[in-house]
C-alpha cells in the first residue's frame, strides 16, 4: 500500500476495504504499529488489547470474504473513550476508583458498532469521570496535544481528540456533558459533534450528570463524523431518555447556502483571543459569501450558563457518584472497620482532587438550607436559557460562535484555578443545558494550534449542522489534517 494508512479518512478506508484493496487486519496492524511508536509521547490511549483488535479484524475480513459485510464501518477501527463499556475491556474512566474493573457487558453504542462491523480499538484517556477540560485530571497519565506537546489536548475527551489528530485511529467516541467532545475537537483540529439529548443511548456510559451527558462521534472530517453518527443513533429502551433518530439518516442534508446563521451579540468580544475572533469572523464571512443570511441574535442570559451548569452538573454528579462505595465493584480500601468507614476510605483513596471538589460542591448545592438558593434557582435559570435558545433558533437555523475562547493552554497553566478552567466551557455549555445538537469544525490556526468554530441547532437538526460544516470544510484545507509527529 503506497499511502500511509493512518492518513486516510474512514470513508476512503471503507471504499478500499469494500473493493478488496485493503484488509482490516493490515489496517489494524498498521495502526497498532503507529500506536506502539508514538502513543507514549502524548498519552491518547491508556490501554490497547492488540490481540483482541487483530481477532476482531480477522473476523471482519472473514465476514467480508463470505459476502456478509455489515455496512460502511465494516473493518474500520473506532477508538473508545474509557467511560463507554466494552465487554471484556477495562472500564476505568481514568480513575483509580475503577482501575480494577473489566466491563462484563457491552454499552448500546458498542453493540451498534459491532453490528456495523467496526473494530472496537482500545481505551482512550480522559479526565477522571469526564470532569475536566484538559485531560490533566486522568489518574493514569496526562494527555498532551499532538500539535504542541507542552499544551493540553482539551477534555474531557482529550484522548479521543489527540488520537485523531495523531492518526492513531480514523474515528473515535467521545462523551459531552458541558463541551467534552467539542472543546478537545477544537483544540486538536478535528470535528466533534454532540447530538440532540436523547438521540444516542447512554446505556453503558458511566454516568456523570445524567440530564446533560451525551455520547457523540469525533473524526477528522465532517463526512466521517456523519458516518459514525449514523451508526450510533438508534432508540434503546435501556436509556429512558433515548428516543433515537426515527427513520432519518443522519447525514449532511439540504442546501447549506440557504441557511440562516445567527451570531450571538457579544460572543466575539470579552475573553476571546484575537486570533480566535479573527478565524471565527472569517468563517462568518465565508457563510455570508456563500449566500447565507447572517444576523445578530440576542441571548441575554448567556452569562448565567456557566454557574447554572456547575450547579446542575455537580449536583447530579454528587448523586451519581454515590454508587462508588467499594462494595460491588471498583476499588475497596484495605482499611478495616465499619461499613461506613470502609466506604469513606475507599472513596477517599479512589477519587482524585477534581472529582472530590465536584462531589463536595454538588453535595453543598443540594444540602438542606441551600438547595433552594442554588439547585432550584439553577433549574429555573436552565429553563430560561433553554427558552432563549429555542426562541433564537426559531428565527435562524444555526447559531455560530467560537468553540473555545482561546487556543490550547500550557499543561499546568490553569491547574491551580478550577474556576478559570470552568470558563473554558462558556460557549459549549448552553447546548447541553438546552439539549441541543452542536458541532465544532476546524477553521484556522493560531500559530500551529488549531482553532474551531461552533454551530448549535434546534433539536434534531444534526443534518443541517453537518451540511453547514461540510460546506465550510469543502472550501478550506482543514479536513483530514494531522499533527506533524
Amino acid at each position, binding site marked *: 500500500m503506497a499511502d500511509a494508512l493512518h492518513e486516510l479518512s474512514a470513508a476512503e478506508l471503507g471504499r478500499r476495504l469494500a473493493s478488496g484493496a485493503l484488509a482490516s487486519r493490515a489496517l489494524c496492524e498498521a495502526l497498532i504499529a503507529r500506536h506502539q511508536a508514538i502513543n507514549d509521547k502524548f498519552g491518547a490511549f491508556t490501554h490497547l488489547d492488540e490481540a483482541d483488535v487483530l481477532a476482531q479484524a480477522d473476523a471482519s475480513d472473514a465476514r467480508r470474504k463470505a459476502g456478509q459485510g455489515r455496512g460502511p464501518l465494516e473493518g474500520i477501527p473506532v477508538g473508545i473513550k474509557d467511560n463507554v463499556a466494552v465487554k471484556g475491556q477495562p472500564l476505568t474512566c481514568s480513575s483509580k476508583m475503577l482501575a480494577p474493573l473489566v466491563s462484563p457487558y457491552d454499552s448500546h453504542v458498542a453493540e451498534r458498532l459491532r453490528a456495523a462491523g467496526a473494530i472496537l480499538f482500545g481505551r482512550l484517556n480522559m479526565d477522571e469521570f469526564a470532569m475536566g477540560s484538559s485531560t490533566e485530571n486522568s489518574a493514569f497519565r496526562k494527555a498532551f496535544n499532538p500539535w504542541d506537546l507542552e499544551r493540553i489536548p482539551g477534555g474531557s475527551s482529550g484522548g479521543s481528540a489527540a488520537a485523531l489528530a495523531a492518526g492513531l485511529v480514523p474515528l473515535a467516541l467521545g462523551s459531552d456533558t458541558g463541551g467534552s467532545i467539542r472543546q478537545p475537537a477544537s483544540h486538536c483540529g478535528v470535528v466533534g459533534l454532540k447530538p440532540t439529548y436523547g438521540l444516542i443511548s447512554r446505556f453503558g456510559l458511566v454516568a456523570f450528570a445524567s440530564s446533560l451527558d451525551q455520547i457523540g462521534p469525533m473524526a477528522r472530517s465532517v463526512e466521517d463524523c456523519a458516518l459514525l453518527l449514523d451508526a450510533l443513533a438508534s432508540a434503546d429502551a435501556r436509556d429512558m431518555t433515548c428516543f433515537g433518530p426515527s427513520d432519518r439518516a443522519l447525514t449532511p442534508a439540504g442546501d447549506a447556502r440557504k441557511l440562516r446563521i445567527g451570531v450571538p451579540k457579544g460572543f466575539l468580544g470579552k475573553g476571546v483571543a484575537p486570533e480566535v475572533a479573527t478565524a471565527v469572523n472569517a468563517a462568518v464571512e465565508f457563510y455570508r459569501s456563500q449566500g447565507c443570511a447572517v444576523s445578530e441574535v440576542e441571548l441575554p442570559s448567556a452569562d448565567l450558563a456557566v454557574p447554572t451548569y456547575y450547579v446542575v452538573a455537580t449536583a447530579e454528579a454528587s448523586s451519581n457518584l454515590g454508587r462508588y462505595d467499594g*462494595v460491588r465493584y471498583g476499588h*475497596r480500601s484495605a482499611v478495616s472497620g465499619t461499613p461506613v468507614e470502609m466506604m469513606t476510605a475507599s472513596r*477517599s483513596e479512589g477519587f482524585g482532587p477534581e472529582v472530590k471538589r465536584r462531589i*463536595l460542591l454538588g453535595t*453543598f448545592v443540594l444540602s438542606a438550607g441551600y438547595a433552594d*438558593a442554588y439547585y432550584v434557582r439553577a433549574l429555573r435559570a*436552565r429553563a430560561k436559557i433553554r427558552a432563549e435558545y429555542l426562541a433564537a433558533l426559531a428565527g435562524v437555523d444555526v447559531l455560530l460562535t467560537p468553540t473555545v475562547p482561546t487556543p490550547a493552554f500550557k499543561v499546568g497553566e490553569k491547574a491551580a484555578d478550577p474556576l478559570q478552567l470552568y470558563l473554558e466551557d462558556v460557549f459549549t455549555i448552553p447546548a447541553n443545558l*438546552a439539549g441541543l445538537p452542536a458541532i465544532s469544525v476546524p477553521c484556522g490556526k493560531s500559530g500551529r494550534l488549531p482553532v474551531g468554530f461552533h454551530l448549535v441547532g434546534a433539536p434534531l437538526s444534526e443534518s443541517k449542522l453537518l451540511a453547514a460544516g461540510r460546506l465550510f470544510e469543502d472550501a478550506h484545507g482543514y479536513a483530514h489534517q494531522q499533527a506533524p509527529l
Partner: protein
Amino acid sequence: MAEGFDIDHLAKLARLSLTAEEKALYASQLGQILGHFQTLAQADLPATADGARVVDESVLRSDEPGPILGAEVVTRIAPASRDGQIAVPRVVDDES
C-alpha cells in the same frame, strides 16, 4: 449565599475523608466558585423550573424482567466475595 459553608459537614455527607491541607484547599476553592455563582442569586428568573427538562414526555418504561448479569459475573467483579456472595465488613454486631 455561602454563609454556613462547613467543609467538615460536607465531607461527612459526601463520605469523604479529607486531610487538613485538603480541607483548607477545597474550602478556599469552593468559596471562590460559589462567589462566581452570585450571578444566579441576582438574576431575574422565571418563577418555576418548567421547561428545564429537555425530554418532556413520560419516559417510564414498562416494568418487565430483563437480562441480568448473574451471580458468577457479579461476584467476579466485586472487590471481595465468599460462597457466591459479595463480602462486606460486618454490618450487625453479634451482641445486638
